[in-house]
């Protein structure tokens, strides 16, 4: 696989080269926090950004997606017939996506790209996108990627992995798509043995800097779904939750959505918006019956989905969580998923 060294004074040139053939998205400081935004110039990239407030899932699964358009005008012979809304699926690069967030996209693939049905928007955007990851030399204290099967240097989800080696970046292609992208970069230099060693050292340092939480996911996997569902500790876990959707909206692996029709002056569109299992409306039947009308049920659903249902359903050892720590950082009432998972593994009633 291709590997190259891009000195920091040439990194803008490299980004410029990516921009020649692709629309490039990268973390940009927008007001008070970072978000992925399309670049108009390479200088906009904030290379010091630790991570974006919102996960990059929105680049693939848009917060509000215009699905179909239709006419409702009486004299239109096509009135009431839905047509796919035009979309731009031209090639793009998502630059400086963190390994956890890239891995998250893979975890979500199993939902949107299934043997029976393929979500066209997700699939086409995934196809059109090359992910250039940036390894985390300095994981945050709320990061726990290493405890959920990924890591600060995990290349599993990216097409190219960049490592900040101090004076420059080492770029390594991890997939054919990544190879293709690096072939377009002329600003690269060969990677010296010394730099390669440095990258290894950085990797080791990053990995050891993170405490292993010993989440014992295998213990959860072994448990009976129904027993875990009925554990008493959920009573304590759910208490502080206010059922806002912050955790689900910031989460890189939460994919749930709602479908809505909107009409304006004889034209209409079908939209799909992010939704959240935290909201009572999410499961409310038209009859008024609601299988998850209690806060406890909704809180439990989120954690059970990520750490039990997902594993059981897809027969995998990896939970639907990549340890990015966004929900830990931004939960307004400090519900800490790391603690919840510990209790799921231990089935202990008392908080740790």
């Amino acid at each position, binding site marked *: 696989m291709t590997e190259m060294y891009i000195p920091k004074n040439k990194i803008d040139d490299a980004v410029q080269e990516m921009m020649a053939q692709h629309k490039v998205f990268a973390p940009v400081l927008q007001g008070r926090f970072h978000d992925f935004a399309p670049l108009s110039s390479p200088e906009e990239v904030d290379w010091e950004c630790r991570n974006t407030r919102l996960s990059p899932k929105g680049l693939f699964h848009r917060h509000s997606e215009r699905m179909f358009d239709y006419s*409702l005008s009486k004299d239109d012979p096509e009135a009431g017939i839905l047509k796919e809304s035009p979309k731009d699926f031209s090639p793009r690069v998502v630059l400086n996506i963190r390994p956890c967030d890239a891995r998250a996209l893979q975890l979500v693939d199993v939902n*949107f790209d299934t043997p029976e049905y*393929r*979500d066209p928007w997700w699939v086409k955007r995934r196809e059109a996108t090359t992910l250039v990851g940036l390894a985390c030399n300095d994981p945050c204290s709320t990061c726990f990627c290493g405890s959920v099967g990924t890591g600060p240097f995990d290349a599993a989800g990216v097409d190219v992995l960049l490592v900040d080696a101090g004076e420059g970046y080492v770029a390594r292609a991890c997939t054919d798509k990544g190879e293709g992208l690096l072939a377009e970069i002329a600003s690269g230099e060969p990677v010296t043995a010394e730099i390669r060693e440095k990258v290894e050292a950085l990797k080791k340092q990053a990995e050891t800097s993170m405490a292993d939480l010993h989440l014992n996911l295998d213990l959860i996997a072994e448990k009976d779904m*129904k027993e875990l569902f009925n554990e008493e500790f959920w009573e304590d876990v759910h208490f502080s939750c206010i059922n806002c959707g912050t955790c689900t909206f910031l989460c890189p692996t939460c994919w749930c959505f709602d479908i809505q029709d909107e009409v304006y002056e004889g034209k209409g569109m079908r939209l799909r918006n992010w939704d959240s299992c935290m909201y009572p409306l999410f499961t409310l039947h038209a009859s008024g019956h609601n*299988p998850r009308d209690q806060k406890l049920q909704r809180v439990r659903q989120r954690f059970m989905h990520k750490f039990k249902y997902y594993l059981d359903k897809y027969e995998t050892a990896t939970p639907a969580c990549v340890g990015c720590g966004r929900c830990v950082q931004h939960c307004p009432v400090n519900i800490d998923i790391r603690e919840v998972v510990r209790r799921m593994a231990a089935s202990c009633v008392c908080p740790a």
Partner: protein
Amino acid sequence: MEIPRGADTRVRPYRGDANSKGGGRSLQARNGGIEVENPYLPYPVRIESIVTETEDRNLKTFKLVFLDAEDEAKFRYHAGQFAELSIAGQGEIPIGIASSPTEEGYLLFTVNKAGKVTNYLHNMKEGDIMGVRGPLGNWYPWETLEGRNVVIIGGGFAFTTLRSSIVYMLDPANRARFNDITVVYGARSPGLLLYKNELIQWEKRDDITMHITVDGTNDPDWKYNVGFVPAIVKEKAPDSDNAYALVCGPPVMIKFTLPTLAELGFPPERIITSLEMRMKCGIGMCGRCNIGTELVCKDGPVFTFDYLSTLPGEY
């Protein structure tokens, strides 16, 4: 290859089927590559006719005809499946398919007036254009039911996919595949029974045993049963030997019917039901209709009670 409509062409086991392998994930892939068939795009249909089913006028049966014959060919379904009815400007609703695969040229949907979309639909007229997306979900296990006695127990307006099933089994091409067919169907009053004309016709046939019942009635000419569905099941005591029961109805009916069936010797793996849930996508992606690991829209809606008992009771 010419595939006859109504045949079991897709391998999608219902949840809890002893023959099921790989847990409800079907094997047929959609078009590969980047040309992705949009599973959210409804087929356009025209409302051919509307029948008001019940005297409270809350249930109407809509007969829908595809605008494009090719779409009809693609919409190959099994009794027990559902579809998303789509109304531009209003939204979509998941509704069980009431017509049988053996009834060609149209689809039937019996819709209860409950929310925003169904209220709008009830005010639509014959000739109006709407959409249908599907078929969705799994179906009653027709291959497993072959050579068996089938006991159908329905209550209220949860009789739609059961009607589909009865029509399917009674079709001359299919009738020989199944042994005795027994139906217990009840509603609160005679005016609330669905498909009355058909019920009367079936009642007169000798290849199906009908037990129509109402909770109560003032009608002196009522010549069928009076009593709750579970009581009538107990009274008529269909033989459980080599038999499967398909049970659909309001929760309270199911609650009291299950012990009766158990007494009659039906084990939970031979009692099959179809669940309802709030749904949006209908294809297992939007995340709201799960019971534990199972997505009712895609892994269901048909489950055995045996299988349901292994899942969290969140439905």
